[in-house]
């Protein structure tokens, strides 16, 4: 068991998982900041629809989300066909795994970011405007810095969620060792073989540790931001 800890195969699985989650967050966080800022604004036409779409991956069976990605971004998919013309293939690649994981994590990333924007005192932005700050400068210097803890909380939570993604990933990019076989997929594969239990256990340890650390960090940040924005 000790040998497996330093086994290149184990490290490759953990590294690939971290790499997929990191790319997923790099794609999703900027989108989530825009969505969070928009959803924090009071009623605008279509807000309910956008909010519902953002939350969809949370309630749709992951297999369905993965299939939707395949239909959209697969080699013969609507967008995938067009990407194929440029030699870009997302299905069955680790970049595709990041997209699947990112999409599944999106609602969890948006939530604390939206909360961070919603709890801000709108009068601070008005004050910045009276001091001559343009819309962009107000967002960059007042709104965004106050939302940082929320953004970090969303990032951490989303990272943990992306790390554990299974259903959408296996449907969209399959279970290819060293390309799309992330932690969850590797654990599942190992548990299918009679001799894999002890190796699976180590990966399970990794998964539990990373998830717990992420969720705890996110909780602490969220309560901190609530206290800080209270006054």
């Amino acid at each position: 068991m000790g040998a497996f800890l330093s086994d290149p195969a184990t490290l490759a699985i953990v590294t690939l998982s971290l790499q997929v989650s990191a790319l997923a967050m790099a794609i999703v966080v900027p989108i989530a900041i825009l969505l969070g800022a928009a959803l924090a604004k009071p009623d605008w036409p279509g807000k309910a629809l956008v909010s519902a779409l953002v939350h969809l991956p949370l309630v749709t069976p992951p297999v369905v989300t993965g299939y939707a990605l395949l239909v959209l971004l697969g080699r013969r998919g609507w967008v995938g066909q067009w990407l194929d013309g440029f030699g870009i293939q997302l299905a069955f690649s680790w970049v595709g795994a990041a997209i699947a994981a990112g999409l599944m994590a999106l609602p969890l990333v948006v939530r604390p970011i939206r909360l961070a924007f919603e709890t801000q005192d709108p009068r601070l932005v008005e004050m910045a405007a009276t001091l001559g700050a343009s819309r962009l400068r107000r967002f960059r210097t007042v709104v965004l810095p106050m939302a940082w803890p929320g953004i970090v909380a969303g990032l951490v939570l989303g990272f943990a969620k992306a790390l554990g993604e299974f259903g959408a990933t296996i449907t969209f990019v399959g279970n290819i060792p060293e390309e799309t076989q992330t932690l969850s997929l590797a654990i599942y594969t190992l548990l299918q073989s009679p001799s894999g239990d002890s190796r699976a256990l180590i990966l399970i340890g990794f998964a539990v540790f990373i998830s717990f650390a992420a969720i705890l960090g996110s909780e602490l940040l969220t309560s901190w931001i609530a206290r800080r924005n209270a006054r």
Partner: protein
Amino acid sequence: MLEVTVKGQVGRLEINAHLWSDQPVTAFYGRSGAGKSTLLRAISGLWRPDEGRIKVDDRVLFDNVIGIDVPVHKRNMGAVFQAALLFPTMSVERNLRYGFSSKDTGLFFDVVEMLDLGPLLNRSPRHLSGGEGQRVALGRALLAEPEILLLDEPLTGLDDHRRRQVIPYFAAIRDAMRVPIIYVSHDKSEIAALADVVFVVERGQVVQELSAEELTDFEMGLSTS
């Protein structure tokens, strides 16, 4: 010179006000909810009236007939509200410099000195008392070199002791900075200490124009039924 004619609706309150002033310190006096702050927000551009005209010196800031509505950040108004509203992620100094674009670095130190802000510069706004916070807010507004300084109940959140400490600073600004001030308050003594002309605001309308001396004898609620 300030000229304001505005009509519009805020919640249940119907605003229909006209006023004209060329005095250094103009006060809006009235009960809370009378529409004083809304008039101030109209001048600063934070509230958009349905119709009317707002003019400061030769500059038209709003006129629905000729379609002018200068955005807030281009109106060059300094504002201080009841809450100091300092940016919590910045130090006091960064707050002060937020709207400061002048090359005249002397001005920064003049304002810091006039408002006794030197010892506060490196602090976080979280660690200021109410009176200190208002002084920083005032300094920040002044450093934006506004054409008009809008003060909306700037002393209301403070106790009497702190109030007495802050009032002299307002007087100093009035005398030293030569920037016209519009001062909104429901407190006669504050207005009497600072204002040259007083507009009494009631139910969204300017119902009377008084001098500061006349305000002392003025009783609320007799003018309209």
